[in-house]
C-alpha cells in the first residue's frame, strides 16, 4: 500500500460540516456541550471527542467580507514528533500508509504529544487518553475511504495515494501545496490559491529540536515509574 493522504481544498469547502458529523458517527464519538461564540464555528475547539473541525475564518479583503473554511485536524506528518516523543509507544506511525494512529489502551496521558506537535492537534478524552484524527485507519486498511472524505459533497476532502493527489492538485493549477514538503511531507496536504497565512495555517511548521531527547528522557521516567508532569515537558522544550 502506497503512502495515503488527504487533499484538502479550502476553496471548495462550503462549511457544511458533514465531515465533522461523519467523523463522529463512524468513530462513535459523543456530542459535547458547546456555546455560541459569535461565529458559525462549532464546536469551539478540537477535543478528545472531536477529531476534525472546520474553522470558519472571517476576513475583510479589499473591503469585501470573505468567509474561509479550513479543516483543523492531525496532519499525519512524515516525521511525526508525537511518535518520537511518546514514551510508551501509544502513538504509532503506520509504515504501510504513513497514517499516525494510536492505542488508547497504551496511552498514559502524559500529554507530551500535544507539546511536541507543531500544529497543536492532540487532545485528550475524559479519561485523559489521547484522541485525534487517525485518518480512519480501520477503514483504510479495509480498502475503504475515510469517513470525512467519503461524505464530503463538494470534493473539498479527497483521499488517495499521496503522490497521486499531489499530482492531481498540481494539474488542477494549484501552486501552493501546504504540506507537500513540510516535516517530511504531511499526509494531509492543503491545495491553496492564496498563501497559507490567508487560511491561518502554520507557515513553515517546525518540530521542537529536542524532541527525540525528550522522548528518551520520558522513557526513562516511565521505566522508573516516575510521574510525568507537563511542566517538565514544557521546561525541557523551552
Amino acid at each position: 500500500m502506497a503512502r495515503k493522504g488527504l487533499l484538502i481544498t479550502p476553496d471548495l469547502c462550503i462549511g457544511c460540516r458533514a465531515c465533522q458529523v461523519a467523523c463522529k458517527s463512524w468513530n462513535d464519538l459523543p456530542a459535547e456541550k458547546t456555546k455560541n461564540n459569535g461565529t458559525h464555528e462549532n464546536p469551539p475547539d478540537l477535543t478528545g471527542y472531536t477529531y476534525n473541525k472546520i474553522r470558519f475564518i472571517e476576513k475583510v479583503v479589499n473591503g469585501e467580507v470573505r468567509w474561509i473554511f479550513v479543516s483543523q485536524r492531525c496532519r499525519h506528518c512524515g516525521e511525526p514528533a508525537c511518535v518520537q516523543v511518546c514514551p510508551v509507544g501509544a502513538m504509532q506511525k503506520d509504515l504501510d500508509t504513513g497514517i499516525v494512529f494510536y492505542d488508547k489502551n497504551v496511552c498514559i496521558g502524559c500529554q507530551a504529544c500535544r507539546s511536541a506537535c507543531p500544529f497543536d492537534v492532540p487532545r485528550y478524552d475524559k479519561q485523559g487518553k489521547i484522541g485525534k484524527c487517525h485518518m480512519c485507519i480501520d477503514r483504510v486498511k479495509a480498502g475503504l475511504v475515510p469517513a470525512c472524505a467519503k461524505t464530503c459533497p463538494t470534493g473539498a476532502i479527497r483521499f488517495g495515494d499521496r503522490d497521486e493527489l499531489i499530482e492531481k492538485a498540481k494539474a488542477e493549477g494549484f501552486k501552493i501545496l501546504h504540506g507537500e514538503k513540510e516535516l517530511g511531507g504531511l499526509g494531509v496536504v492543503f491545495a491553496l490559491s492564496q498563501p497559507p497565512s490567508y487560511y491561518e495555517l502554520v507557515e513553515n511548521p517546525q518540530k521542537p529540536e529536542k524532541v527525540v531527547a525528550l522522548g528518551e528522557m520520558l522513557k526513562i521516567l516511565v521505566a522508573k515509574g516516575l510521574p510525568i508532569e507537563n511542566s517538565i515537558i514544557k521546561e525541557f522544550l523551552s
Partner: protein
Amino acid sequence: MSMKLTRRDFLKLSIGSLVLSSLGINLEPVKAYAKELKIKEAKETTTICPYCSVGCGIIVYSKGGKVVNTEGDPDHPINEGSLCPKGASLYQLANNPYRVLKPLYRAPYSDKWKEVSWDWALDRIAKLVKQTRDKYFMVKNEKGQVVNRVEAIAHVGSAALDNEECYILQKFLRALGLVYIEHQARI
C-alpha cells in the same frame, strides 16, 4: 531457501542495535494494526435519506437487527457516496437515547405531556377529524357551486416523507376534502 544466523552475525546485530538505541532511534517493532472493522460481515440495506427532496442513497449496515453504521451509497446516481451533515447523522435516527418511542399527549389546558398508546392516539385523531369534518363539510359555496371541501382542517408537512408517502398522504387529504395542504419548506 533458509538463512542461517551465525554466531558472528548475531554478535554484529546485537552490537548494532545497542549502538542504534543509544542514538535514540526507536527499535520497537511496529505494532500491527488489529482493530476489527465495525461493519465487517454486517448486512447492507440500501435506503433513501428521509430528510429532503434531493433523495440521496444511503447504505444501512446492521448486525443482528441493530443498525451499526450508515453512510452514503457510492453506487447511487444522486449523491455517489457523499452526504450532507443531516444525512451523515442518519445513524442517530435509530440509535439515540433521546428518541421518542411513544406518542405524547397534552390534554386541553394541561401543562404536561403524557405517554399514550398508539391505538389511543390514532383513535382520538380519527374521532376528532371525523367530528370536525362532519361539522364543517361544505358541499356548495356561497355562489351555489359544488365544492365538496373542508376549510376547518389544515395540513402542514412533511419534508421528511418520501415520494410514495407523499402520494398516499395527498390522496387521503384530498379525499377528506382538505384544501389547505401546505409544506413547511414553503412557509
